[in-house]
C-alpha cells in the first residue's frame, strides 16, 4: 500500500515536470532529420513562426492508435501516430479550421469537429511499420471508420489526406 502511494506520487511528479517543461518550451528546436511536416498559421508556440517537424519530434508527442479499415486498403490495420488534437495542443493553437496539403499538392480542409470529436489521427505507422511515400506516408490522416460507421462517408474519406506534408491552422 505504501509502495503504491509512492509510485503514484513519483508518476504525478514526473507528469508535472513534463507539463512544466512543455509549458516553458515555447520554442521548438530545429529538426535534426528530414522535415516531414510543417505547421503554420494560428499557432502560439515557437513565437508564432512556422514549425518544422522531423520524425523524431513527432514521435516525442503523445502517441495514439486506431484500428480500422479504409476504402484504399484491404482488411483492418493498426495505425499509430499523433492525434491531431494533441498536435494542435503541442503547438498551442486555438484554431478552428485546418488546411492540410499533401506532397502532390492535394489539399483538403479539416474542421474542429474532425479534430475534437471524430478523432483524426496523424498516422506515422501502419501495423508497426513506418509509413513510406510508397504507402501513403510518411504521414496519413486516419479516422476510426470501422468503430464509427457513421464516419464512413465521402466527406470524411476526402479528409483522409495521405502523404500529408503541411498544415495551416486558421483561426
Amino acid at each position, binding site marked *: 500500500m505504501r509502495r503504491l502511494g509512492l509510485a503514484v506520487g513519483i508518476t504525478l511528479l514526473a507528469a508535472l515536470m513534463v507539463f512544466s517543461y512543455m509549458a516553458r518550451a515555447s520554442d521548438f528546436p530545429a529538426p535534426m532529420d528530414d522535415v516531414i511536416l510543417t505547421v503554420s498559421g494560428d499557432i502560439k508556440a515557437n513565437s508564432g513562426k512556422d514549425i518544422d517537424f522531423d520524425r523524431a519530434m513527432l514521435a516525442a508527442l503523445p502517441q495514439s492508435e486506431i484500428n480500422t479499415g479504409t476504402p*484504399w*486498403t484491404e482488411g483492418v490495420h493498426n495505425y499509430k501516430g499523433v492525434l491531431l488534437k494533441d498536435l494542435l495542443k503541442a503547438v498551442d493553437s486555438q484554431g478552428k479550421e485546418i488546411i492540410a496539403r499533401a*506532397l*502532390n499538392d492535394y489539399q483538403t480542409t479539416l474542421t474542429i469537429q474532425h479534430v475534437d470529436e471524430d478523432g483524426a489521427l496523424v498516422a506515422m505507422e501502419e501495423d508497426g511499420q513506418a509509413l513510406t*511515400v*510508397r504507402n*501513403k506516408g510518411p504521414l496519413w490522416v486516419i479516422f476510426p471508420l470501422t468503430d464509427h460507421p457513421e464516419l464512413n462517408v465521402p466527406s470524411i474519406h476526402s479528409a483522409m489526406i495521405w*502523404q500529408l506534408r503541411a498544415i495551416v491552422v486558421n483561426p
Partner: protein
Amino acid sequence: MMKKWLNSLVLYGVALVFLGLSAISLNEYFRNSQLISSHIQLSAWSLAQLELEQQKFFNNLRLFQAGAISHKELMLSYDMLWNRLTIFLEGDENRDIRSRFHADKTVGEFFDLLRKLEPAMLHLQQNSSPISQLVQDVAAYQSRIRELMVLNFTGPEASKQLDGIRQSQRILAFNISGLVLSGCLLVFYLLRQSRRYNQLALSDPLTGLANRSAFQQQLKLTFSRRQRGLSALCLIDLNHFREVNLTLGQAQGDDMLKRVAQRIRAHLRQQDMVARLDSDDFAIILKDLDSREEGLGLMRYLQRVLVFEYLAQDKVFQVDVGIGVAFMHDVVSDDDIMLEASLALSEAKRSKEHAVALFEPWMSEQEHRRRELLQSLRRLLEGGVVDGALRLVYQPVYRLSDQTMLGAEALIRWAHPHYGNIPPPELIEVAENNGLGRALGEWLFSRLQFDRDVNRVTWPDGMTVALNLSPSLFHAGLPDWVAGQLQRTGFRAEQLVLEITENITMVDFQRSKQILEDLRQMGIKVALDDFGTGYSSLSYLRELKVDKLKIDRSFIHNLHEDQNQRMFVMSIVQLAHHLQVQVVAEGIECRPEELLATELGCDEGQGYLYARPLEASHLPGMWLVGNPQQALH
C-alpha cells in the same frame, strides 16, 4: 361531431403522410443519383491522378536525364507513382473501375514493371544507357493508361452505362410522378366522398330540410357566435298529425309532411334555418332579427300559412300548427333555449286562442312546479307512504227521498309542504303524464284500508265508497286489477262504486263496454261521472251499462232559477230511469236546489248542503247521526 372532426383529421393526416413520403422519395432519388455520379467522379479522379503521377514520373525521368533535377526528386516521384498504383490496385474505392476494361491487369503489369525497375532506379546515372531504356518502357504504358481513361469516360461502354442511368432515372421520375398524382386523386376523391357523406348525414331525406344533428350544430354555432342581430328559436308541431297517419297511412302522412316543409321553407327568409327534428316536429332558427316584433310577426304569418286543407283519398284534413317561440338574448345555453321553446310550444298547443306562444318566465316556473310535484308524488307513491301529505276525504252521498246516508265519495287531497294544497286535477295530470296512474290507484286502496284500520272508518253494511279512476287504469286488465286490490285490502265488491268519466270510455267504445260488463259481473257498481260536460250522446248511454249517472254540478247549480236547466235535468232523469240507471245530483248547495232535484226525480244527492268533504276521523260520526239535518245542528 367529435367523431366527424376526428375522421377528417385522420384523413388529412393520411394525405399529409402520403405527400410527405412522396416528397422524401423524390428527394432520396435525387440524392441517390447524385451519389452515383459522385462515385463516378471518385473513380475518374483516381484514374486521372494515376495518369498524372505517371506523367510526372515520366517527365522527371526526362528532366533527370537532362540533369535538371536531383536523384532525390526523381525518387520522390517514383515513390508517389508507386503509392498511386497500390491505391488503384487495392481497396473498395477503386474496385469498380479496376474491374472494367481489364484495368487491373494493365495497371498491375505497370506496377510489376515499376517494381522491377527499383534496383536500376536506385543507382541511376545521368546519360547512362539504362535510363533511355527506362523512358521507353514507361512510355509504353502511357498510351495504355490513356486508353483506359478514354474507354471509361467517353467510350461506347461508358456511354451505354450513362444512357442506362438516364433511362432508369426517367422511369423512376415517371413512377414517382404517377405516385404523387394518384395520391392527389385519392385525397381529392376521399375529401369529396367525405363531404358528400357529411351532407347526407346532415339532411333529412324526406323533406330535404336540415335534420336534427345539423340543427343542433347550427344552434350551438348561433350560440357561440352571438351574431349581430337578435336570434330566435321556434318549434312547430302539427296538430292531429297522428290521426292523418293512422287514417291515411304513412305514405300520405309523409306527403303531408313534405307539403308542410315546402310551405315553411317558402315563406321564410333566406338566412333562417329550417329543420325537421322528429316526425311532425319542425324547428326554425331565425337570425338577424331587428326586433322581437319582427320575429313574432314572422311566426304569426307562418302559422296562418300553415293552416290549410289537406285533401287526400276524398278526405279533407284541416292542417294547423302550434308554434313556440323563444328569443336567444338572455338564456345561458342551447339546452335552455330548447326547453324554453318547447314550453312555449306546449302552451301554444294547450291554449285555444293562441297558436303562436312566446316563452314567458311563468312557463318555466310552472314547469318547475310540475317537476317538483312529480318528484314529491313519485316519492310518496313509490315509497308506499300511506299516511303522508296525501290523504282521502269523504263526501257523504244521500238518498234524496228520505235523507238516508248511502255512502261517501272518496276524494284525494294533497297538502304539499311547499306549494300548499294542490288541486286534484293537477295531481291527476302529473300522475297520468308520468306513468304513475297505476301507483296512484294502488295508493287509493291502501289509504282506504289505512283509514278503515287505523282511523276506524268502518263501513257499515249497505254503505258504499266511491273511487275516481285514473284514465290510464281503464284498460282490459282493470277488472283483474280491481279484484286484486279488493283481495289485498279486504274490501268487498259490493262496497265499491267506481266512477269513470265519459271521455275515458270514448276512446275505444267496444272495449269499454266489455270492461264495464266485467266489473258489474264482479258486483262492482259503476258510475258515470261529470255527465253532461263531455261529448256524450244519449245513444251512448244506451250502449254502456252503468249503475249510476252523476249529473255535473254545473246543471244543479241555480237549478231553481233556470228553466232550461230544469228541462235538461228532467230529460236526463227520465231517460236514465227508463234505462234503469240511477241519477245522482252533484253539488247541491242550498235547500231550493235540493227540493228541485228531488222533484225532478234525482235519486241521490251530494253537496255542501249536506256536508263538505270530511276528514276520515269525522266520518264515523256521520254513520251514527244518519240524518244530515241533525248533523248540521
